[in-house]
């Protein structure tokens, strides 16, 4: 029960501070879930993001469900997700009810322009951390760079990229790589 409550509160807090979409969640999840509580390893979080990219739904919700499930089974998955979406529901309801031109307020625009810059730095930091555990030899380096280029400069769906990468891993290991 205490763990469930803790899961709810941790993800509630993440729901409040997750600005600028799911990827902004990464550095915060690293801090709160990996470093502080040890609910999952950095490697597992990377796996969850990989799976979250190619399964339906919002990526950050997928990651929340994963972490919750790992700690406390199905109930944990549900509770973590509910914690994560509660702040959105509250904040959006307040904004929708009272502030019709919220996104046009000058101060809000300036604040968010700067927050986006901060999110850039946070995500780059997260990428640098992930690189250590995921890019470990030549093939993984090639996969990482190829996916980056394809995702940035072509319209290929991330789903396809993730499937290809998984297949490349299997083929490489089957042909001659060692475990």
């Amino acid at each position, binding site marked *: 029960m205490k763990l469930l409550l803790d899961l709810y509160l941790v993800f509630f807090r993440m729901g409040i501070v997750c600005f600028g979409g799911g990827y902004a969640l990464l550095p915060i999840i690293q801090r709160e879930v990996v470093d502080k509580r040890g609910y999952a390893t950095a490697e597992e979080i990377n796996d969850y993001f990989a799976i979250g990219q190619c399964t339906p739904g919002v990526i950050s919700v997928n990651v929340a469900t994963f972490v919750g499930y*790992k700690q406390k089974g199905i109930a944990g998955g549900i509770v973590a997700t509910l914690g994560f979406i509660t702040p959105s529901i509250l904040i959006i309801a307040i904004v929708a009810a009272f502030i019709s031109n919220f996104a046009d307020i000058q101060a809000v625009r300036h604040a968010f322009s*700067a927050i986006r810059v901060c999110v850039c730095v946070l995500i780059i930091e997260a990428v640098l951390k992930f690189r250590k555990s995921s890019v470990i030899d030549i093939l993984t380096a090639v996969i990482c760079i190829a996916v980056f280029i394809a995702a940035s400069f072509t319209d290929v*769906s991330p789903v396809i990229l993730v499937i290809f990468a998984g297949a490349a891993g299997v083929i490489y290991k089957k042909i001659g790589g060692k475990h």
Partner: protein
Amino acid sequence: MILLKLFYEFFKIGLFAIGGGAATIPFLSSLSDATGWFTKTDLANMIAISESTPGAIGVNMSSYVGFEVYGIAGCVTATLGLVAPSVIIIIIVAGFLKRFRENSTVKSVFYGLRPASTGLIAAAAFEIVKLSLINIDAFCASGILMELFNIKNIILFIILFAAMRKWKLHPVFYIGAAAIVGIIFKL
């Protein structure tokens, strides 16, 4: 009845929108055509607000649409509908992974998946860098090289990057500090 329909519509979006919050936008656009619950202009406002409030964009969008259609109850219902498929699918996948984690094929799959995930996240970082540090439209319009770079934002970027390297504070501290700097210096 309308709550049931809201749940059903957002359940469908949650099931078919793969690849994050932005992927829900085309679905919401066709939902607006199909139901008349909100107009395209409303949708544009909702996107702006979802991007400028905390939380995952997809979740914010469903909360907003739900609220406009049926108040607080609609807000909760639409969002639960959106996340229900995720929760079900991820619980199945996570259960599968728990059993087959040590399987060598599963290990090889992840060996390939991890760098791909890192690459995708790097691509997301690149998108935001383009959006906030570089000003391609202004550059194309004027042809002046100085206008290509958003100087104020780049200075903030460098300061934040150096600060994060030096002091390992909680990310929220940097987000808050950036917001204040943004308001003071009108970024």
